[in-house]
Structures are given as structure tokens and as C-alpha cells.
């Protein structure tokens, strides 16, 4: 291959970085999202080709083998994945990004020769720590989302102290690494210890807080890439990594605001692990809960003018999105106006409900954001809540002592009739009873989401 001047390669990295910027800009607007994603992919292709032309690259065998293996795995994962499994796939991809950073920094640590400048060793330590926390944190998030391990917070005794000690240990090893440049063993010890931190930092965080965790890990995977950029002195990595770091932080912030909680509060974890004080479930529900049947619900829906459907994680679990679409179509044929009320943190990742409903071909225009639909619940005849709980708990609005006090909720309690499709009266993730279930205008339609909706569709057809 003819030698390509270093400057040309660097210009190619610059163009790739510009393509990434346009790509991210495009991805944040509905009209340009597809083009944005393609621009990002084009930037990546350019960066890869430019790298293959670097004079440091002496042989292509290992590279092509790695690309073939990774390409096939990525292709299969992306094509085969069910949309309901998107949260764990995104978690997994985040982890791989972090993992790649560990190995790149580890390889560079072997390659570089004395004298190693202090900023390279600092960057190597940073890469190792962030990359390893991202990899293991993402694997734990994956395990929770995939159901390999419990979604409930796992609280180790003295976990805050433990996390602090591991963090101090990581920083200490990092310092040793900087003062003993070239020690390969130290680097991998640091990676191992940071991996422990990734585990202990994510296990106490419950399933309902996963949207925050996933977007934060997304940000970390970018920062890990940026840190690796400092290690190998590559501006392409630094720019792309920081862009992703920033976009992940923006999403993290959106999720925290939607729960009215600080990032620290989410990350310290434990919400839903312990039964908090307050009225017991019996006090709230005793004698006040009315259950209903498919026929009765069908009648209510059919005579309604306006119906708001509130999907939650339970809908994703029972994979009932197609039944929801069938019900929507049936009702619309009968002249009922159907809308979907989407809470920003419903589900397990940012935008989870949007992806789920889009898969079932439910038109985007029917999905209303919380701020848009909340003022209009007074004019809703029937709110149909499917597999959501904490995001419709009026205690968040009315009871300052509630653990979820101040969290913005969907005001379904203001609609004329509320129908809850739910297996039982068991609490949502926050572990607290929901007074909504005991309200005069609420009917409980007990059952598995999918089965309940199938029965409901059949009942509406018979009317």
C-alpha cells in the first residue's frame, strides 16, 4: 500500500468527527434521524479506512479476523433482537464499548516505551477505570433486564462504605500506575478492582431506575473512548467520545428530571428495597377496591368519546403491544378517540414505550407526552392503565411523606373512569400502595396484560 501522509489521515479523522456531529444533530430531530444515523455510520467507515492506512498498521490479518467475528455477532444481534429486548441490548452494547477501551489502553500500555509522560499514564489509568466500570456495570444492568438476576436492589451491608473503599482503592492503584509507568500487572489489577466497583455500583439500583443507569453508562462509554483517545493521542477518539459523553449526560438529566430525583439519589440506590413507613396496603385497599370484567370494560370503552391508554413496563413484559393496537383500531372504528399517555420514565430505558408502540404500528401522532396530556385528563372518559403503577400514583402529587413525593405523574385519577389492568394489587417498584386503585372512579381488571387485552378485544367485537 502506498504511504499516505499523516496529515491526510488526520484530515480524514476531522471529517469523520464533523460527520459525527451532524449525525448526532440529525438523530435528535424526527425528520432527520435516519440521515443522522447514516452520517454517523459514514463517519465511522471513514475513520476506520483512515486508520487502516496508518503506517503503524503492519499486518491486516488480526484486524480482519476481529472485524469478521465482531461484525457477524453485531449483525446477528441487531437483526434478531426483539424490540421488547432493546433495553438489555443497549446495555450490552454500552458494555462492549467500555470493554474495548480497557483492551486498547492495556495494549498501548505495553507498547509505549520510557519515558512515559505523566499525562499518558494518567489517561491509561482513567481509561482502565471508566472502561471497566462501564463494562461490568453494563453487564449487571443487562443481567437485571434480561432476568438473569433479580431486578430488585441488592443491598450489601455497608455498601456506601464499601463503594467508597473500592473507589479509594482504584484511585490509589491509579496513582501507583502513574508513578510506576510500564507496570502491566498494576494496570490489570486496576481494571479488576474497577470491575468490582462497576458491580457494586449497579447492583443496589432497582429496575425502575434503569433508564437513568443505562443513559449514564451510555455517557461513560463515550468518556471511556475519550480517555483512550488521550492514551493513544488520537483526536478522533477524543471528539467522538466527548460527544457521546455529553449526549448521554443530557439523557441522564432528562430521566432524573422526569423522576424529580437527583442523580446522586438514583445512584446511591435502594429505592424499593425496603418497605417504607406509611399506610399499609390493607389500610389503603380494604373494602374499597372494585374489580371488573372484560364485558364491563368493553361497554365502558365503547360508550366513551375519549380514551387514554397509559402503558407501563408491564406491557413490555407481557409483550401485549400488538393486542393494544388491535384494541385501538377496534375502538377507532367505533368512533372513539384513543390516545396514549407516555410517562418519560415508563419502562426500562429512555423512550422504551415509544419503541414498543412503534413496533406494533401505533401511529406516532397518538403518543402524547406527559406535559401535553396532563391538563386534558379531565376530559378523558376512560383511562386504561396497562402495567403501569408508580407513574400514576397520586401520592406523588398529594402526599409529601411518600417516597415518590414530587415525582411528576400522569393525572389519570382526574379522568371519569380509570381501568387498571394488572395481575394483582402488588405494589410497583417503589414498594408502596397506590391509592388510585381504591378510588371511587377506579375499576381493577385483574389479569395478565396480554390475556386481559385479548379478552377485552373479543368482548368489544361482540358488542
Amino acid at each position, binding site marked *: 500500500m502506498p504511504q499516505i501522509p499523516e496529515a491526510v489521515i488526520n484530515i480524514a479523522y476531522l471529517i469523520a468527527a464533523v460527520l459525527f456531529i451532524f449525525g448526532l444533530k440529525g438523530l435528535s430531530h424526527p425528520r432527520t434521524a435516519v440521515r443522522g444515523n447514516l452520517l454517523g455510520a459514514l463517519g465511522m467507515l471513514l475513520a476506520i479506512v483512515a486508520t487502516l492506512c496508518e503506517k503503524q498498521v503492519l499486518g491486516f490479518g488480526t484486524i480482519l479476523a476481529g472485524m469478521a467475528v465482531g461484525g457477524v455477532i453485531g449483525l446477528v444481534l441487531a437483526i434478531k433482537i426483539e424490540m421488547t429486548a432493546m433495553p438489555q441490548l443497549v446495555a450490552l452494547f454500552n458494555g462492549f464499548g467500555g470493554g*474495548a477501551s480497557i483492551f486498547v489502553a492495556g495494549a498501548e500500555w505495553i507498547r509505549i516505551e520510557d519515558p512515559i509522560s505523566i499525562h499518558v499514564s494518567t489517561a491509561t489509568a482513567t481509561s482502565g477505570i471508566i472502561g471497566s466500570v462501564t463494562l461490568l456495570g453494563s453487564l449487571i444492568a443487562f443481567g437485571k433486564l434480561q432476568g438473569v438476576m433479580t431486578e430488585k436492589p441488592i443491598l450489601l451491608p455497608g455498601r456506601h462504605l464499601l463503594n467508597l473503599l473500592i473507589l479509594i482503592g482504584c484511585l490509589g492503584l491509579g496513582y501507583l500506575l502513574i508513578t510506576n509507568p510500564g507496570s502491566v500487572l498494576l494496570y490489570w489489577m486496576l481494571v479488576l478492582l474497577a470491575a468490582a466497583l462497576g458491580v457494586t455500583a449497579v447492583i443496589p439500583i432497582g429496575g425502575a431506575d434503569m433508564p437513568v443507569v443505562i*443513559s449514564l453508562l451510555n455517557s461513560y462509554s463515550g468518556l471511556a473512548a475519550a480517555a483512550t483517545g488521550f492514551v493513544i493521542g488520537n483526536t478522533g477518539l477524543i471528539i467522538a467520545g466527548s460527544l457521546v459523553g455529553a*449526549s448521554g449526560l443530557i439523557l441522564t438529566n432528562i430521566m432524573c428530571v422526569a423522576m424529580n430525583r437527583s442523580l446522586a439519589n438514583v445512584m446511591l440506590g435502594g429505592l424499593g428495597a425496603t418497605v417504607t413507613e406509611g399506610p399499609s396496603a390493607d389500610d389503603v385497599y380494604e373494602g374499597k377496591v372494585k374489580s371488573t370484567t372484560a364485558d364491563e370494560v368493553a361497554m365502558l370503552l365503547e360508550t366513551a368519546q375519549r380514551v387514554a391508554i397509559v402503558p407501563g413496563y408491564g406491557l413490555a413484559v407481557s409483550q401485549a403491544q400488538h393486542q393494544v393496537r388491535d384494541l385501538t383500531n377496534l375502538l377507532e372504528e367505533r368512533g372513539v378517540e384513543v390516545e396514549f399517555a407516555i410517562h418519560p420514565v415508563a419502562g426500562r430505558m429512555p423512550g422504551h414505550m415509544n419503541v414498543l408502540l412503534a413496533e406494533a404500528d401505533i401511529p406516532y401522532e397518538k403518543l402524547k407526552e406527559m406535559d401535553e396530556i396532563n391538563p386534558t385528563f379531565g376530559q378523558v372518559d376512560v383511562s386504561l392503565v396497562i402495567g403501569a403503577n408508580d407513574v400514576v400514583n397520586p401520592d406523588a402529587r398529594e402526599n409529601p411523606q411518600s417516597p415518590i413525593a414530587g415525582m411528576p405523574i400522569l393525572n389519570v385519577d382526574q379522568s371519569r373512569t380509570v381501568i387498571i389492568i394488572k395481575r394483582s394489587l402488588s405494589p410497583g417498584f417503589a414498594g408502596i400502595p397506590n391509592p388510585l386503585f381504591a378510588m371511587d372512579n377506579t375499576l381493577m381488571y385483574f389479569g395478565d396484560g396480554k390475556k386481559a387485552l385479548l379478552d377485552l378485544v373479543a368482548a368489544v367485537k361482540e358488542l
Partner: protein
Amino acid sequence: MEVDIVSLITIFVLAIFIGFEVITKVPPTLHTPLMSGSNAISGITIIGAILAAGSDHIALQVLGFVAVVLATINVVGGFLVTHRMLAMFRKKRD
């Protein structure tokens, strides 16, 4: 490779600002695609992975190989699944 550290830090800080400015208001529908698309971009680590895997040092090749595999999964899977999701959103728009 010895590069002026201050220039690198300058680039880093400016790029973070660009990130915050470029992605201002994201509609909820795009939360997931933005996350998976930006995640694919974080697979840029593949550059470093290629540089390591392409060396003539066996240890670097081994570490580089693992990194290339991980980063390629991230890049290929990330862009592709994002495209799949966006296509799903788009088909109902028409």
C-alpha cells in the same frame, strides 16, 4: 505518539460543549435511537483497537483482537439496530 496535551484537553472540552449544544431538545420518541446511535459512535475506540491489532507485537495483537471484536460489535450492531428502529418509526409516518 507524543501530542501536546494542552491541545488535546482543548479539543476535549470544546467537543463536550459542542455535544451539549448540538443535542438540545430531544423528543421522547428519539430517546432510544439517540442512545443506541450515539453508543455506536462511541465504538470509535475501534481506531485504537485496529492500531493495536495491526502491530507486530504478539501481546498487542491479542489485546487488539479482543478490542476489535468488542468495538466492531458495538459499531455494526449499534448503527444497524438504530436504523431498524428508525425505519419502524418512519413507516407509520407515511
